[in-house]
């Protein structure tokens, strides 16, 4: 009976954690999954979002409201960053993956150092009415600080999926990495589409930052623990799928949770890497990857 209880608890915890992972990976599902830009700075951007939300929260703003509001300046930052990226690499035809990786690795470090200089290395947390309370159903106890960000993920993913499938700009974002010339002969400017998509990805970093800082305190380097996992989520889901991100993230969350419960918490960080390697070896297109 104890095993069953433990198992059920691990399952619920895994689903909740996975849902939060999906939110953290969502921006990368756009930049890497759709635009094919290896944005390793995404987790650092998410932590940047967490700090932005924490600042607003210190003036009494609800963290989720702050996340939504910060999404707007983050969008603008993303547009500027993409412009910088494309001017330094893509437009000169020198955009190889290694150079892009180096650039985004550098950006990641700059964000971290910037956060250290501005806020120090102390843990930073937020205040909200629901933090410290839990929902109890039977023997399962789930703190609201996990439940609320987890509930946000499906909503955001559903809205993003609608945008990507029902709007002209959404179709263009899905097309741009495959056939730029198709966009041009459809009367659309590929550079503008990519800027916009990168902006949306950064807006997602603000939302994910809010979610992450609700779950617990963060420090400037908190993004590092997520780098392997966000790539694992996007690759397992399959490049270019938005709803697949949720499924893949939950699978990884559940796997981690079971390893933590039944093996050892110290193995949990390896789970995502194992899944990443297994996916690349066994099913390189991921679970829901578009053909080709």
């Amino acid at each position: 009976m104890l095993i069953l209880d433990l198992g059920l608890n691990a399952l619920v915890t895994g689903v909740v954690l996975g849902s939060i992972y999906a939110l953290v990976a969502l921006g990368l599902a756009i930049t890497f999954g759709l635009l094919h830009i290896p944005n390793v700075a995404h987790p650092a951007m998410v932590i940047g979002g967490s700090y932005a939300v924490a600042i607003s929260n210190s003036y009494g703003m609800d963290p989720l409201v702050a996340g939504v509001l910060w999404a707007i300046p983050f969008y603008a930052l993303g547009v500027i960053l993409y412009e910088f990226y494309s001017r330094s690499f893509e437009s000169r035809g020198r955009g190889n993956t290694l150079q892009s990786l180096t650039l985004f690795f550098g950006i990641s470090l700059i964000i971290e150092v910037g956060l250290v200089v501005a806020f120090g290395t102390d843990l930073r947390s937020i205040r909200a009415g629901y933090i410290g309370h839990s929902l109890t159903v039977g023997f399962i106890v789930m703190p609201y600080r996990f439940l609320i960000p987890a509930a946000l993920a499906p909503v955001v993913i559903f809205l993003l999926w609608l945008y990507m499938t029902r709007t002209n700009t959404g179709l263009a974002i899905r097309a741009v990495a495959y056939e730029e010339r198709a966009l041009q002969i459809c009367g659309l400017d590929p550079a503008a589409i990519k800027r916009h998509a990168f902006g949306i990805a950064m807006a997602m970093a603000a939302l994910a930052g809010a979610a992450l800082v609700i779950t617990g305190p963060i420090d400037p380097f908190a993004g590092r623990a997520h780098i392997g996992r966000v790539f694992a989520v996007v690759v397992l889901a399959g490049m270019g799928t938005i709803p697949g991100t949720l499924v893949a993230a939950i699978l990884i969350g559940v796997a981690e949770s079971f390893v933590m419960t039944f093996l050892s918490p110290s193995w949990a960080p390896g789970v995502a890497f194992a899944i990443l390697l297994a996916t690349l070896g066994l099913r390189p297109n991921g679970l829901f990857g578009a053909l080709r």
Partner: protein
Amino acid sequence: MSRIIVDRLVAGYGAVTVLRDISLEVGAGELVALLGVNGNGKSTLLNCILGFIRPRSGRIVLETQGRTVDLLTRSPHEITNLGIASVPEGRRLVPNLTVEENLLLAGGGPRGRKDIAANLAFCFETFPILAERRRQYSSTLSGGQQQLLAIARALMTSPEAIVIDEPSVGLAPIVVGQVIAAIRALQEARNLTILMAEQSFFQAIEVASRAYVLSHGKIIREFDQTSAVGDAEIRNAMMGVG
């Protein structure tokens, strides 16, 4: 109604000059064929008109609705939005979008947006096979179906002119006839201005009202009445022996 005028165009790649002093004109509502064998610069010329290649010198202008627009200062998507659609070499469909999504991508742009429903209905009516395959990824269509989709996509932008690059390439002879016939029917139904590059001139001159022959980057012949010209004469011109 629009007219495309190319005037003393010189273009090439790096140190290589491909087009030397090209002048031609496609009148409003005219279907003009651009004939030439492999590697004579047909695609280069069409890509200059579409803004993908910047020529070294010369002029390309579009006359539309009483104004004259210099195309050389415009980028490709702006040229599309001026009413010149493209059916490109290699078709350039988006492989990871469905047939319908490929059409909607074109139809939702600035120019076709207000007529998107009517344009989509027209495309599905004209090419029933595309309606049947609307939920299929474009990469899973046959070559002929992909060519029809590329043509339908061009129509979705509500164009006045269409530049078509070798619609027959890679298609079985019987399909070539269907594709060319479809182009002709559309041209008449919508009174489009069409410039069509071809090397299998046989079908092209059936439907074209005029033809230019491009050889080694120059226009070497111009046929004003393609119906009155014998096949042998055109073939010889294309081979540079006429």
